[in-house]
């Protein structure tokens, strides 16, 4: 029996250039749960996804994965080079990497899995299509097929329904729910509250720090959303340094400011 916890955040802080984008996050994500991550632009949702995927190193704290947990990450803006001379099948078969790695030969069952993945996203017959001939929605479906092929325990989806029409959305949503039924853990960054209410039992509302996290009905309340809206998107160059002296004495901002430059060290952030 694998542990019931999939992810543990232990005082996790993630950021860029000394500014925190995800601030002191603690909590756990249960195995097999399906969680929507919600928040305004710049509230740290994508940063959190990168942190979990291991692409961004924490500036403080830890993000602990359950042992042997495999992770699939579908970024919001992929760095995909669509002008690269590749076909849909080349892109989707990248999803075989966790199984076959650098040297493993693709086996007959891999080809079957590949065909099944393309079928599942409705791209049957697209194997040989050049990537630059795909529409935005078709590309997103191809990326879903790749994610499917990764066969991961934890699936991170960053705004997966961008540029996707309603028919495709229904299709992809069904796929996500299928993953959930298979016992995979889903974390998805989403903006459509109705969609979250309808399909995601768990939610995390972010505004650099977590405003609310739990059952969706408890999280998406008017009060919480108002609270989240007061979140200031812009970085404050004069924001007090977060650390022992500054945090302990939040009233004495001036002292914290003076302490600021001298307190600048690795792991310090605003």
């Amino acid at each position, binding site marked *: 029996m694998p542990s019931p916890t999939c992810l543990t955040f232990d005082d996790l802080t993630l950021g860029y250039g000394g500014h925190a984008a995800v601030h002191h996050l603690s909590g756990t994500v249960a195995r097999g749960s399906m969680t929507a991550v919600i928040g305004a632009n710049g509230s740290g949702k994508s940063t959190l996804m990168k942190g979990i995927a291991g692409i961004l190193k924490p500036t403080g704290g830890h993000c602990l994965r359950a042992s042997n947990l495999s992770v699939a990450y579908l*970024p919001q803006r992929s760095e995909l080079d669509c002008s*690269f001379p590749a076909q849909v099948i*080349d892109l989707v078969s990248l999803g075989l990497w*966790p199984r076959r790695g650098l040297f493993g030969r693709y086996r007959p069952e891999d080809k079957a899995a590949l065909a099944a993945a393309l079928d599942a996203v409705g791209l049957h017959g697209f194997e040989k299509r050049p990537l630059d001939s795909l529409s935005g929605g078709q590309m997103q479906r191809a990326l879903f097929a790749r994610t499917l092929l990764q066969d991961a325990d934890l699936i991170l989806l960053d705004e997966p329904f961008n540029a996707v029409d309603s028919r495709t959305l229904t299709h992809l949503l069904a796929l996500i729910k299928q993953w959930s039924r298979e016992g995979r853990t889903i974390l998805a960054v989403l903006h459509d509250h109705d969609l979250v209410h309808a399909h995601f039992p768990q939610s995390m509302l972010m505004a650099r720090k977590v405003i609310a996290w739990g059952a969706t009905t408890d999280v998406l309340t008017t009060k919480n959303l108002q609270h989240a809206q007061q979140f200031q998107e812009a970085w404050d160059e004069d924001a007090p340094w977060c650390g022992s002296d500054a945090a302990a004495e939040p009233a004495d901002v001036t002292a914290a400011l003076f302490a600021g430059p001298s307190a600048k060290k690795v792991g310090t952030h605003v």
Partner: protein
Amino acid sequence: MYDILVAPFAHYAFMQRALLGSLVLALSCGPVGVFLMLRRMSLTGDAMSHAILPGAAIGFLFYGLDIVPMTIGGIVVGLLVALGAGAVSRFTIQKEDASMAAFYLISLAFGVLLVSWHGSSVDLMHVLFGTVLALDNAALTLIAAICLTTLIGLGLVWRALVAECLDPLFLRSVSRMGAVVHLLFLTLVVLNLVGGFQALGTLLSVGLMMLPAAAARFWTNRVAPMCGMAIGIGMVSCLAGLLISFHASLPSGPAIILSAGCFYVVSILVGPRGALRSLAAPRRHRSA
């Protein structure tokens, strides 16, 4: 016909060596050039070919026109520049094209200074434009070793290299191999340029890398066939260039590169993905 095509190689050992050396080089440079082009690093090859000059010059200053010290010097300086430019782009906000330009300019100026310090301008021309007609056994062995290393290296990391070109963020999410593969690839670029400067000189060695690759892009939309095309175009260019150079008493390096240039221009015009084909695109279309 025999006199034009075969006799030069049948009768002259230096022509045989030149042909062998340049064919092996084309085999090695073709795939490297394709990946440079696909990674939008076509000019990086150019920059690197300049950057290896001071290394070759240092070897040349101390040991004369001897292949071993010039090669080692070229490899060391080439790798230093590649690593330096890569490190700057990784740890600062500057992108690799700018840091590469800065490093290669410093390196090139240093190299020209070194050569002019002791050597005459004739020597400089030797270093810059190569001596394909004077390939000795040591040079042929070196080119063959570089070719073997390149083909084995590319074969080993092929999947990762394609993934790194196609979707680097994805590769980072499933493997930490991206940076290693990038470095290995840059090493292969340096090795091939160093191998090339013996035959073609530092200024033209990048031509045998980029022109066949750029020409092959107009013929196919798959990576592996593109590498094959580039190798083929490179080899035919070497053969044609050497023959032209022999019969017209022209320098061999530029003759080879200009032959490859002809292939490039022809490919732009008549390749299936070239200009004429897209201009003459049919007005008729299928309904779905």
